[in-house]
């Protein structure tokens, strides 16, 4: 029932999950992946029917796996943040850990997520089990082959020195840019991401840990870029010859075009805090660290509300502010939902920061950054890549009204071509 992870594992993602498939791909490309095993999805389906693990599986796990290990879910489709991950599991707890991951497939929240995203409930998840690597003896991070905010080529990411990967993914800790990595590690990451881009023909990002100077790859995901980054990467890849122009057009959803012209800060701007962009747009104002203060200060000019997190007691402050920054929270937190309902730029989850009452700042809710002062270098033009993409669309579809209509028409032409193409 358990399959060892190896470059020779041929089972498809439908059976071993997207995460294990990515690990196998990395092994084939010669990247260092901690030793591991995968429990295929049919075992999960049996668990969901029977309500318990088979005795055979427990015995097999005991015989094959030496602890301590990490135990992670991995369906054939991505369900970020929905299911359990357990770290540092020792041998005797392994059955329980696997059961916890299987059970997390069926929580009401996970069910709601699947309905929203048209994922069948019966699909089930695979489980990957891997020998622990310890970021405490080095660091952990996420590295992108291109900047996920802008699409600009080149290594981009964040790292927590002396910490495990779950601390990076869960947010709330202050990460550092990859430039703080010890000599050699950054180059190794760049080289690996280059190989992965060549394989997937798309921008990629990896989760990594380095332990005692040795770099390990824990996960890879291709694509997943949004907004202007998606446009720039599709066009750049076509111009580099990695994909053709038709593929580039099919990779950009017409709904992306609106965000290409949302005001944002120029890339050269100095940054004093970095979090997650929760509502796009740029706003400048004086920092108010309480909601009562925001209401008072708003009489004299625009205010940026800066809170550890927000609650109903901050509604008047949120209403008075031009934008909001929180130390804690992710894209679904209270501040994020309220800011979107009010159409105000929001940056959440910046961690600890030095923003002081009364200080003038500018926030960018697309990139998720806070800059000092009232920044004049706000960009409202789209990247040149947008014009290039629309030019390719016009070659296929001719004149078709506004740019959304043009891209939609070009994509329709390509989709018809694909449907009519002989197998």
């Amino acid at each position, binding site marked *: 029932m358990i399959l060892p992870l190896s470059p020779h594992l041929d089972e498809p993602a439908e059976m071993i999950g997207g995460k294990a498939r990515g690990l196998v791909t990395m092994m084939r490309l010669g990247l260092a992946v901690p030793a591991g095993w995968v429990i295929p999805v049919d075992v999960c389906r049996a668990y969901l029917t029977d309500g318990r693990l088979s005795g055979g599986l427990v015995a097999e796990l005991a015989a094959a796996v030496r602890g301590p290990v990490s135990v992670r879910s991995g369906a054939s489709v991505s369900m970020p943040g929905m299911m359990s991950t357990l770290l540092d599991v020792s041998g005797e707890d392994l059955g329980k850990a696997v059961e916890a991951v299987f059970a997390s497939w069926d929580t009401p*929240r996970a069910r*709601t997520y699947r*309905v929203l995203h048209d994922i069948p409930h019966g699909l089930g998840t695979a489980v990957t089990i891997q020998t622990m690597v310890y970021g405490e003896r080095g660091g952990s991070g996420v590295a992108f082959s291109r900047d996920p905010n802008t699409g600009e080529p080149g290594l981009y990411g964040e790292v927590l020195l002396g910490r495990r990967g779950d601390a990076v993914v869960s947010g709330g800790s202050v990460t550092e840019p990859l430039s703080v990595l010890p000599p050699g590690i950054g180059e190794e990451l760049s080289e690996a991401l280059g190989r992965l881009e060549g394989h997937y023909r798309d921008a990629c990002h990896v989760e990594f840990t380095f332990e005692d100077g040795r770099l390990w790859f824990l996960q890879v995901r291709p694509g997943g870029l949004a907004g202007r980054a998606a446009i720039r990467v599709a066009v750049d890849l076509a111009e580099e010859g990695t994909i053709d122009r038709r593929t580039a057009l099919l990779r950009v959803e017409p709904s992306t075009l609106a965000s290409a012209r949302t005001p944002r800060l120029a890339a050269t701007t100095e940054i004093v805090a970095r979090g997650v962009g929760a509502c796009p747009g740029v706003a400048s104002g004086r920092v108010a660290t309480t909601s*009562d203060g925001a209401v008072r200060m*708003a009489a004299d000019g625009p205010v940026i509300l800066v809170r550890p*997190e927000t609650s109903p007691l901050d509604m*008047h402050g949120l209403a008075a502010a031009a934008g909001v920054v929180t130390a804690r929270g992710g894209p679904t937190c*209270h501040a994020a939902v309220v800011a979107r309902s009010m159409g105000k730029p929001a940056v959440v989850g910046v961690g600890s920061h030095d923003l002081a009452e009364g200080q003038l700042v500018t926030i960018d809710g697309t990139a998720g950054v806070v800059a000092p002062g009232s920044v004049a270098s706000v960009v409202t033009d789209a990247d040149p890549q947008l014009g290039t993409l629309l030019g390719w669309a016009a070659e296929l579809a001719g004149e078709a009204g506004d740019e959304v209509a043009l891209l939609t028409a070009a994509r329709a032409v390509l989709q018809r071509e694909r449907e009519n193409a002989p197998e």
Partner: protein
Amino acid sequence: MNTLLHTLRCIGFATLDRIAKIAALPEPEAESELIDLAVAGLVTRLPGEFGGWGLTDRGKEAASKQAAAELDATGARPRVLLAFDEFLVLNPELLDLCTAWQVRSDAAKVLALFADFDRRASAVIADVAAVLPRFGRYRERLSAALKLALDGRTEYLTDEMESYHAIWFQLHEDLLVTLGIPR
């Protein structure tokens, strides 16, 4: 328990009409009582476009004390704690739904999921209301917001002051205040 003090502790600064409506009091009665509370130093009024009535620090302390006293007097703590655990399971799902509503386009699907969520949330709130009847107001208010949304007033999911999201967060705050759990 002083209803206005507790209401302000859960909803934050608000205008008189909202406070009266949520506390289910006639406006003149609410206003007169707010003035008494202000004289006692528990309530203050912030001027300006975004101002309103809200608690002072002393008011917050008094609200916490009376909530704790009520919980002890009724012996409801064990049931409220159990319900709070269930609330914490529901909470991320509701936030997912609110975010999905704001960033996705399949309205009918998200609305149906809200309705399904509301059935499960109602059961949890009923558990609390069985020992602390004032929590029954949250069921009424959430149902009213959902009904408006299902009738086409979809701003009552996340955008209005009396939206499902706003009421849900007040319920969250109320449970924290009632149990004396800091944020």
